[in-house]
């Protein structure tokens, strides 16, 4: 695994089996708010930082959109990083891994829960990089865990409808969670501000960040 995805002590599968259900459905107020921004007749550019999910592609097919799918966790964990002595920098890595045309501007960014898996420096660099491809009004959807532990790898999320989201756990092994607070997020996300946030019963806090 690459260098800068957070590593925490894992808890045993047996201990955590009940805490990590295979899949569950949660209402998503933030996603619902985001979908309400979509107007007919406009074409949208969407960046999905999660793994490819057929149901999500089908869901977005009802809108006029161009959907970029970039499984960030998979991309980063399968990439060999150079050391700092060799000019390694998060900025360079993100520019390499997420190379979009300068004119590209995303209307919506679906970060799901992947931000929990980045350390602070990587988190901030990613946000700076994505800011280059955001416009005033770009909305980013993210789920930040407030639990002490979270699954070893991000969930796979499937949009069921405008307000219901299926969480499919990819591992029953848990790791420590950074539990990023709103103040920290504000520091790590230059250009973005919290437009909406909702606490969920499952310990996640949904955020809609607005790029200004």
């Amino acid at each position: 695994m690459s260098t800068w995805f957070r590593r925490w002590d894992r808890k045993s599968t047996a201990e955590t089996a009940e805490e990590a259900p295979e899949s569950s459905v949660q209402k998503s107020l933030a996603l619902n708010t985001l979908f309400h921004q979509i107007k007919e007749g406009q074409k949208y550019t969407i960046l999905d930082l999660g793994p490819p999910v057929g149901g999500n592609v089908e869901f977005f097919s009802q809108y006029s959109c161009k959907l970029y799918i970039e499984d960030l966790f998979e991309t980063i964990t399968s990439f060999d990083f150079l050391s700092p002595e060799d000019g390694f920098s998060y900025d360079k890595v993100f520019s390499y891994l997420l190379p979009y045309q300068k004119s590209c501007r995303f209307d919506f960014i679906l970060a799901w829960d992947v931000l929990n898996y980045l350390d602070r420096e990587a988190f901030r660099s990613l946000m700076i990089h994505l800011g280059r491809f955001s416009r005033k009004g770009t909305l980013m959807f993210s789920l930040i865990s407030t639990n002490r532990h979270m699954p070893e790898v991000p969930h796979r999320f499937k949009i069921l409808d405008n307000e219901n989201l299926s969480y499919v756990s990819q591992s029953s092994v848990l790791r420590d969670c950074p539990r990023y607070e709103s103040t920290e997020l504000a520091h790590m996300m230059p250009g973005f501000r919290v437009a909406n946030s909702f606490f969920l019963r499952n310990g996640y806090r949904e955020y809609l960040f607005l790029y200004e």
Partner: protein
Amino acid sequence: MSTTPSVRPQPVREQAIIGASLVVKGDVAGDEDLLIQGKVEGKVTLQNNSITVGRNGQVKADLYGKTINVEGNVQGNLFADENIVIRQSGSVRGNLQAPRVTLEEGSKFKGSIDMEGPAPAKSASPTVIPPAGASTEREKDKDDRKSPGQLGMKLNNPSKA
């Protein structure tokens, strides 16, 4: 009076096959369906027909077809007039453009999906941006880059520290 229904024979669609042991370097064009089980490096243009990249198929090319089915591996952009389906065993790095796109669960995909508008004309150059790892330039870049192991570098990995 005889009530035996008359059965009109269905026209048999011709399908060409690039077999598993074949390697094609260059453009492929024609007017029949194509099943690719081998390796293809070059543009494939079958605008009025279906293109299937079979489980063993490995394609480094842009594909232009009426319908495109991917069960194997493709690095390139896909343009279809009707639909594109990436099967469970399929893997695509590239941009997709078709009125309808289906990704089966378990399929691998990296790139962009544009589900509006017809595929560009055969002669038109694709204008979409290659995603991570999809473009030839990037592949070259990736191939040329030395791995940390080759350089004898220390990875900044806390777990290995």
